[in-house]
């Protein structure tokens, strides 16, 4: 199993959902996809290609809200970043927590710190500031001072 083969399989499977592929080297790849495809992509990576979900990073940028889902193929040391760009005004995306538990906490955290809504999350409660933080104030958004 090598990086080239994994990427080839991936491209074939999700041809119509891929927006951009950026290959830094054999161990670091970023693929930008349509947000609607995230469930199928994560399911394919986790179940079929046996990737491990490391964590996700959410960003607030000029484009809107972005999420990098970091997946690791440990046997070849590959980190595959699945990158999605969400709507500026109503950021929401399907939750991955029904595929693997590893994303449960980080989705709660992203919801809390950036106000991104995760659809069908089993329990989208606050993770960090339970009961101690104002509603609708998101500290990792750019306008927060």
């Amino acid at each position, binding site marked *: 199993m090598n990086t080239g083969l994994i990427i080839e399989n991936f491209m074939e499977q999700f041809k119509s959902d891929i927006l951009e592929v950026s290959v830094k080297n054999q161990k670091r790849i970023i693929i930008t996809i349509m947000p609607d495809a995230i469930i199928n992509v994560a399911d394919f990576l986790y179940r079929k290609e046996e990737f491990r979900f490391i964590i996700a990073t959410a960003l607030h940028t000029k484009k809107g809200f972005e999420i990098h889902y970091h997946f690791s193929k440990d046997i070849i040391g590959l980190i595959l970043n699945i990158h999605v760009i969400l709507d500026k005004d109503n950021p929401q995306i399907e939750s991955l927590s029904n595929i*693997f538990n590893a994303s449960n906490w980080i989705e709660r955290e992203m919801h809390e710190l950036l106000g991104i809504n995760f659809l069908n999350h089993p329990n989208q409660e606050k*993770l960090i500031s339970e009961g101690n933080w104002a509603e609708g104030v998101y500290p990792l958004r750019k306008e927060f001072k």
Partner: protein
Amino acid sequence: MSKQTLIPIGPYHPLQEEPELFRLYCEGEIVKDIKWETGYNHRGIEKLSESKTYEQVFFLVERICGICSNSHPFAFANAVEEIADIEITNRAKYIRSIIGELERIHSHLLWVGLAGHFLGYNTVFMWAWKYREPVLDLFEMISGNRNSYAMFKVGGVRRDIEDSKIPIIQKILDDIKKKTDLLTGAVMDDPVIHARTKGVGILTKQDIIDYGAVGPTARASGVAIDVRKDDPYAAYPLVNWKVITSEAGDVFAKAEVRLLEIYESISIIRQCLDGLKKEKEGDISLKVKEIPEGIGNGRAEAPRGEVFHFVQSDGSNSPVRHKIRAPSYVNIATFKKSCIGQTIADATISLAAVDPCYCCTERMAVAYDLTSGEKIMNAFELINESLKKTIELKRTIKSQL
């Protein structure tokens, strides 16, 4: 439904002395459900990092954890060097690995000590912490600090390990190895420790994969992941060593993996010291003028597992976004699998087995009856539950001999 009792461990852990809150919902002695509250230590480091320069961020991330203060700078350096495409000198690589492995030794010894204390083996606790002390002395000799060593920077390390210091380090390593032999023998052969830890808090391979657990927690369940091997960095590809795994997934397997890893760490440090002798003294860092625009995924194997740092740069002198994932973030979530169905006395050691890392303050724990709100037991009585079980086991095992 029978009567359920709520036993909170926290807001400050009575034994690990760190803030967190676990709510154990028990029926009789058996834990039926667990809920947790974290975030008592949330310091907004990711946000703070955006206002610091790359050089300053090293000092910030070093303060995320007191025990493994080196692992976050390690992952951050890997991420930034990935963005700037920097290959550091061999001498710097060896020094980085030596610091990383010394840290693993002292962190694992600390855990063994604490685990002993949890089980009511205060001799193990005192031995392990005593043997850990020379490692901290070594850190003081190398960096001037027992903890938070401030050794790393973009493009290398801040301080050299001079060739004149190598014999002292080798001597101390010899001592640590002898003491670890003693400790490993004591832990591995003790029938009471076997009885308290074998078959307790089992995590299956599937649990590990599902929760994305890392480090000794994953390796004790037969999942052989180790960033040092899978995605080699620093001097790890230049030395020979093996990934320690165990299949059982219980508390004993986790202790076994950690103890055996100490030997691997000693061997890695010895090889790095030999490598150091071949490199020119003082050749420890490169001049880095600027960090270009880009994205870096840096990771390092901390004593507790994979530390992951995501850094996005826009070409200025501070990161635009810096995401940090500590290993305990994914390991603590596995409690849902390891604790349910256990007795309260075993729950404490199951919780401790992943070596969770919160931070350091102390308060109290009290158990309340859910229906009447009446106080049932306090922190000391909770700890005594665990100690009592060990004493009883000691007695039965003695009577069988």
